[in-house]
């Protein structure tokens, strides 16, 4: 193995050892698929029925009765979270710290956001579309140091 590649491999391994226990974490959780405006171009208020909507988009995540009819919702959730433990490398420089539980000196920064994309469709009592609308909040999902 060339010396340069060997050095790079050793360096990466050292980095992995130093970073063991994940002092840095980027964590993301997604639920379901995003429905885009193009996906609902077939919906025509006053004409499209619940069966048509389900045939194209699948069954909704929730159905709720309202006074004028029924609202169905399709939801996509996206959660991003970043955390850093700035005190994690300290025991390598101050081995005495190994004698103490790390809760005593641990300092973590973290933050994130939860964003949603939602499609709401309201039906009248005959299950014909009255209106449909998107709620766009996916930008709220971001890594915050």
């Amino acid at each position, binding site marked *: 193995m060339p010396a340069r590649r060997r050095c790079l491999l*050793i360096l990466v391994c050292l980095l*992995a050892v130093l970073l063991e226990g*994940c002092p840095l*974490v980027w964590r993301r959780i997604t639920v379901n698929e995003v429905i885009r405006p193009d996906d609902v171009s077939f919906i025509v208020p006053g004409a499209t029925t619940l069966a048509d909507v*389900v045939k*194209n*988009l699948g*069954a909704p*995540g929730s*159905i709720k009765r309202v006074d004028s009819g029924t609202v169905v919702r399709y939801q996509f959730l996206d959660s991003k979270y970043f955390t850093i433990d700035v005190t994690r490398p300290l025991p390598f420089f101050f081995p005495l710290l190994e004698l103490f539980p790390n809760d005593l000196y641990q300092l973590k920064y973290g933050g994130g956001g939860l964003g949603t994309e939602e499609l709401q469709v309201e039906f009248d009592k005959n299950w014909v579309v009255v209106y449909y609308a998107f709620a766009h909040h996916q930008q709220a999902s971001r890594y915050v140091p």
Partner: protein
Amino acid sequence: MIFVRSMLLTVAAAILVQGCAFFRGNYDDDFKQEDVELIKIGASTRQDVANLLGAPERVIEVHDKEIFHYYNYTVKSGTLIFFSRTNVVGNDLYVFFSSDGIVEQVLLGRQKPPPKLQFWPFGD
């Protein structure tokens, strides 16, 4: 020499994959198409549906009619050193009943594809 090199590579790989985890799980089972097809619109009762699919997760009342709501979730999660991504996909099934308790409509539609196993938390 080859043995030493192989050992070093194995040790390097073991160090690099520490802190890695891949997980998969599910909440409830997938809906079986053959069970759903046994539900007869205009004939099956609440009991028939419960015998085929089990008790529903939720019962919703809309315009004095009952709707049986079934759902399941599939989770896949990957963690590689300090990147982690969890994908969850849910599928829903609704069975609408008339005021007489007879099946009026079954909503299943297009099933979502299973979640991808990923660890990269950036991008789409």
